[in-house]
């Protein structure tokens, strides 16, 4: 494994007014790794993603991508460097058919530069990508307006939009939330395929059982700080983590 981390955060902090959402979070992710980020509600997981992709401006700290700082760049330029994300609350273009949703990432400078495509070619590319994430080719589902799709397909569409950008690093923000076990089981192979293609993946997740099967390493967050970092089994044995998830002896005692 290479020694240079693909992405590194150094003492990243964010305060919304008086609320310290994130405090001095430092972590690194190696190329090809699948990193899970877990933690109770409100522990700062999504804020961390928003800071890396610069949808939110950090109060202090640094984000390094391939060794160079990116925390001063606007969000669209960070995407162009090869960091794609999905949103926890899916953000499709509701009025457009599902496959037309894919045209917009395919039209982005990064996708145009890497895979090309002229006007009219992109419809076929969009349908291919949607088939990859499980939109059945012979059905009508890819032509339905995104507003009429069920949650499972919206999550897949969100994933396909990230894949269309040909990213090096994919950040999946609670991709599994709101999905049935069967739907999760059908998305896991897509993630594993992305790993085989050499993509680095960060997964924010509440579904620990599914996450621990595929993650190499897990970071645990609580109250805006990183409280544990290590392989899934070791992390779950950590006392601080047990305390965060289950409550401490003194909390439950009274």
């Amino acid at each position, binding site marked *: 494994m290479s020694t240079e981390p693909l992405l590194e955060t150094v003492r990243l902090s964010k305060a919304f007014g008086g609320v310290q959402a994130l405090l001095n979070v430092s972590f690194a992710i190696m190329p090809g790794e699948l990193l899970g980020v877990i933690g109770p509600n409100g522990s700062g997981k999504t804020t961390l993603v928003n800071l890396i992709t610069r949808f939110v401006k950090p109060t202090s700290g640094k984000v390094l991508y391939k060794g160079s700082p990116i925390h001063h760049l*606007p969000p669209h330029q960070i995407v162009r460097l090869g960091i794609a994300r999905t949103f926890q609350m899916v953000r499709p*273009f509701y*009025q457009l058919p599902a496959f*037309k949703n894919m*045209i*917009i990432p395919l039209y*982005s400078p990064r996708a145009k530069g890497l895979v090309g495509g002229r006007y009219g070619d992109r419809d076929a590319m969009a349908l291919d990508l949607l088939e990859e994430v499980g939109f059945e080719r012979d059905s009508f589902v890819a032509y339905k307006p995104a507003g009429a799709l069920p949650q499972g397909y919206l999550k897949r569409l969100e994933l396909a939009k990230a894949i*269309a950008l040909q990213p090096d690093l994919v950040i999946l923000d609670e991709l599994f939330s709101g999905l049935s076990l069967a739907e999760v089981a059908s998305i896991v192979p897509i993630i594993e395929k992305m790993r085989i293609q050499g993509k680095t993946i960060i997964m924010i997740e509440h579904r620990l059982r599914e996450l621990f099967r595929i993650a190499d390493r897990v970071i645990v967050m609580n109250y805006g700080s990183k409280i544990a970092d290590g392989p899934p089994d070791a992390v779950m044995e950590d006392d601080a983590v047990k305390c965060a998830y289950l409550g401490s002896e003194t909390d439950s005692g009274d």
Partner: protein
Amino acid sequence: MKTRKERIDRGIKARSQDIFVLCSWREMLYLAGPRLLPVVVCLALPLVLSVYWQKVLISVAVFALLAISWDILSQSGMISLGQALFFGTGAYCAGIMNHYWGFSPLITLPLAALFGGLISTVLLLPVLRLRGVYFSMVTLIIPLMLVRVIEATKIFGGTEGLSGMDPLPSAGFEVYLIVIVFLAVLFGFRRLMDSDYGLVLKGISDNDRSVINAGINIYWFKAQALFIAASIGAFAGAFMTHVYMFVGMPVFALDYSILPIAAAVVGGPGTLAGAAMGAFILVPLSELLRGIGGLRIVFYGVFLVVCIVALPEGVFHYMERKYHQFERWVEVEK
């Protein structure tokens, strides 16, 4: 025995969306008819209309251009209340170039469209980040501000305006120029909005963060949409400068902001053709009501309200739907 109305899509609609449409004249006509009809009507109208109604046709085409300009902006997620800014900037550009530098109208028209578009875009660049009603308010205020600037500083003729512009070569040239530009803008930009580029613009209005997340600089795209819309409006303004042979403060009047929106709402926004159709309904209607006198505005207002309540989707969307469907009464079983 009860009956209900059944609406069915015509089979020919599905067939005429495919390459096989080329197989039969009937299907080609079905597809081309609604597109050829406005072209033929627009080109034939100046031949049959009286001089007075030719002037009305010019006014219709100018408001149709402003309505198309409004619709392009609204499809890109910018609700503008200031078409008068584009119209007025273009009008003054043409006026200045003709009055001070003596450029011929054939040069001022394209240059005014270009520079009017640029100036309006630069004026609105700082507020491109604003969304919704905040952007609208700024577009409403800027033309009203420019009027006061001209009045107070007395530049470009001040309250008197600039007069004695060169007219266009002939009345026939005048009317055909604006009609042809209108048709070119309508069909050209309809095609642009259907392309992948237009899809990005529509994506910005639908969900701008998702477009950012696709690695696209939405402010660059919004600025381009603004320039396109402003140039269309500026051309309309420059053209009217040469028709009236005068440019003054009324070019920033609220009429040029509000009437295009009314046209887009009556015709149906989101297609450009609807906005243009709205102008073709509202402007001649306003002329016809001139005979009524004082109550003209009341009748006009009532018509607008009835239109909006009865056909909220817009006349164009309604006609498009009816064109692709047929209806029949069927018996409902108990």
